[in-house]
């Protein structure tokens, strides 16, 4: 597929890299010559230096024959205009990053229709949604949701004295007769899709699929369920904080936001009258303690500075705050943060790259199925995809036990209407189902590709 990316900042570069890794042809457009020369040095892409709203530049980049046009400059307006022009010039699908709440509330659909946008990406809102899911289930390191929220994929890290240490998966199923399936296990650096004989160890990171209610039952059964966070302290009052606070407040959480910049404090206080907004430097220990950090259920660091996010989160964890989450803006720092013991990290870059890859695969996917959602888990070593089964899928109505799946591939869940099935060998896929597939080590575009 021919793709064009306008704006090559952190997000743009990530998008470009994931498109190229997916095997697409990519053209990068950016104003700064230095950025373009860096990009063409590192990635197998063409760079065009110029404005993304200049018809001539767009034409140079070959917008007339582009299949996917993605505008992710720092300015929402430039992105919208750029996509509009591209759309008029013949680009098949246009995607714009629009993150200002002004556009995202209410008139987004109107804008989308009028501008001919195929998709809007809003990394801040997506990240906020992801944070919200985790805050609702604090035991988990990550929570990914699928269509209609009937099935969730929950990532857990098995602690030192975990009850699961040394337990065989088949025994686990017998002991806890709930609807769940352990889909993937990360031990050290390798990810495996386990079978019944697999023995868990403490220190493993496991991914399991289950309906949300069953997850709670299982965690309670294992006696590791943390109570839901009710009070959350957020560091930084950026766009992500705004979206997250809004979600939290609507579900009755109490939210306290700490922000250095007085102007930003005022804006967020105007928009979120129910939140407690503190004007002060969040890196100051005294301030955090005075505002009752140790009594909080959760602490979320969302400033633009990774160093600050990581260090302050580390401080909060040392003060025994039950759930600590740090936002990592640059991928370089995430391994450092993990070494420090921060379990839950969110990265806007990874989120955006997931969204783009999902969209690109959905464009490519064949008639038999279409990609609904895609998550990369365990540092990108495994992928979870949700497919909608089309009318002429070859896998239909064959019991799963008779399908010869590729190695390290697993069907983790089937959503049929409003019921969720955690599949066993007797279940089969039907038309209209949504099927959750987990793969490690290879790329899947369509449901039919999971069999040998």
């Amino acid at each position, binding site marked *: 597929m*021919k793709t064009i990316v306008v704006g090559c900042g952190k997000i743009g570069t990530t998008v470009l890299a994931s498109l190229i890794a997916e095997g697409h*042809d990519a053209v990068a457009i950016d104003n700064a010559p230095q950025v373009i020369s860096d990009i063409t*040095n590192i990635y*197998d892409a063409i760079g065009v230096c110029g404005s993304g709203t200049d018809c001539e530049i767009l034409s140079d980049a070959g917008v007339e024959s582009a299949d996917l046009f993605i505008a992710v400059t720092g300015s929402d307006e430039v992105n919208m205009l750029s996509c509009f022009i591209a759309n008029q010039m013949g680009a098949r699908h246009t995607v714009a990053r629009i993150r200002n709440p002004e556009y995202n509330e209410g008139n987004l659909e109107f804008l989308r229709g009028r501008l001919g946008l195929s998709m809007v990406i809003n990394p801040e809102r997506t990240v906020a949604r992801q944070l919200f899911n985790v805050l609702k289930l604090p035991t988990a390191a990550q929570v990914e949701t699928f269509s209609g929220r009937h099935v969730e994929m929950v990532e857990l890290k098995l602690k030192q004295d975990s009850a699961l240490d040394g337990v065989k998966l088949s025994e686990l199923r017998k002991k806890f007769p709930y609807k769940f399936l352990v889909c993937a296990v990360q031990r050290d650096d390798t990810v495996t899709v386990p079978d019944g004989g697999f023995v868990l160890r403490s220190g493993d990171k496991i991914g399991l699929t289950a309906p949300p209610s069953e997850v709670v039952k299982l965690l309670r059964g294992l006696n590791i369920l943390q109570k839901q966070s009710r009070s959350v302290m957020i560091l930084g009052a950026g766009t992500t904080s705004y979206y997250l606070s809004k979600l939290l407040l609507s579900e009755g959480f109490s939210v306290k936001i700490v922000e250095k910049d007085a102007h930003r404090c005022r804006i967020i206080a105007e928009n979120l009258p129910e939140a407690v907004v503190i004007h002060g430097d969040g890196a100051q220990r005294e301030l955090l303690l005075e505002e009752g950090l140790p009594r909080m259920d959760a602490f979320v660091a969302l400033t633009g500075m990774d160093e600050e996010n990581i260090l302050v989160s580390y401080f909060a964890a040392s003060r025994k705050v039950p759930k600590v989450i740090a936002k990592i803006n640059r991928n370089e720092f995430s391994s450092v943060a993990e070494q420090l013991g921060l379990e839950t990290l969110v990265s806007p870059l990874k989120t955006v790259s997931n969204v783009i890859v999902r969209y690109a695969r959905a464009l490519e996917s064949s008639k038999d199925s279409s990609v609904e959602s895609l998550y990369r888990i365990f540092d990108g070593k495994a992928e979870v995809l949700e497919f909608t089964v089309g009318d002429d899928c070859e896998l239909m109505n064959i019991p799963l036990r008779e399908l010869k799946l590729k190695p390290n591939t697993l069907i983790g869940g089937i959503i049929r209407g409003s019921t969720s099935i955690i599949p066993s060998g007797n279940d089969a896929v039907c038309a209209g189902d949504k099927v959750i597939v987990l793969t490690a080590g290879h790329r899947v575009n369509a449901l039919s590709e999971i069999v040998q």
Partner: protein
Amino acid sequence: MNRRMILNTVGKMILWEGVFLLLPAVVALIYREACLLPILLTAAFALLTGGGLSWFCKPKDSVIYAREGFMIVSLSWGILSVIGAFPFWLSGEIPSYVDALFEIVSGFTTTGASILPDVEAMSRGLLFWRSFTHWIGGMGILVFVMAVLPNVSERSIHILRAEVPGPVVGKLVPRMKDTAKILYLIYFVMTGVQILLLLAGGMPAFDAVLHAFGTAGTGGFGIKADSLGGYSPYLQWVIAVFMLLFGVNFNLYYLILIRRFRAALKSREFWTYLAIIAAATAVITVNLHGASGAWGESLRHAFFQVSSIITTTGYSTVDFNLWPALSKGILLVLMVIGGCAGSTAGGLKVSRVVLIGKQIRRELQKLLHPRSVKSIHFEGRPVDEHTLTGVSSYLSVYLFSFGIVFLMICWEPFGFETNFSAVMACFNNVGPGFSAVGPLANYAAYSDFSKLVLSFAMLLGRLEIFPLIIFLSPSTWMRKKV
């Protein structure tokens, strides 16, 4: 430095040279010549060493940076030349190894300077190999390998940049591999068309193929003692026009291929190139007409020679060494200018000359209006200062290297004109110079030392100096120094 990756890639290059050597082997087989055995031995050697090197040096990670790119290109060209010379030497047709090396470097760098006293006595298999090196050397060996290798490293642009001539190297399409494929496709088709046109003019098939190789790579190895003087005017016109075409930036052909004719016609470099050719042809025609001969013949010889020299091919239809001083002077200037960037030609490249001219004009304006601000435009776009500095520093390093090479051979007892034009012809990958190294003479009389120096000069010219300088500078090789 990622040594394993460098060795692995160089190994693959050697492997491919072994594959290429099978072609002249087939030719030798067809004509039942004795050179078959040496060619096959070399091919086997190349396949074994290349295969072994790339097999045992599996890189841990395939990331390459600018430094690795320069190293890969310099090493590959050096080693391929060293191995490529074996068939000449082993067969005894060129008894001295230094001579054989000079000949093959001249082939790969598309220079076309020869040490053969009697080219017509060579066996056909070896003549084929000699001309075939022009063809692969012209577009670039590594570019070819990139087109055929299944997985190309992400940062392979560094290799392209080190091998493809010109101030700014861009890709035609997003993927490196596809770019390399398109370049070779255009190259292949144009060569094919030329062969057909030559065949149509009654040239024997073997001659047609070899001359097309020499034209496409802008090399210029002839297979007759008088180069192209003995062929019909039609054949000379065909070759003259094709030399001109191969001196054009290949991006233009790609634009024509995707039907963006207007963009192709807008190229400033192309028009400047044509203008230089037209002006030089006109002056030389008048000059030759005054000296002797009819208009038509003067025009043909003038155009052929201008086209041959500006594209740094080096074919000749007459002994231009006997031409009037004005015509020879013009040819000497054309040697320096060279063809367009991104073509198979050598020399400074027209785009660099244009940019230098514009910079000079800007400097003059700065002297008159010290506070004036002016950006330089080329091909409808402002040129960034980085590129301009690159062009000026290339000119300086070009002059310096030229001076050093000239100093190293100026003691040879052939007179100033011969020595100077020899360095000029080798450094710019032209081939023939004037006087004792004129189109009908050869480089055999030079000492072994001078032949090695001139071979190095040819490599400098083909790879545009910097890769080799970086390769030779000690800091590249030291492990600890940053």
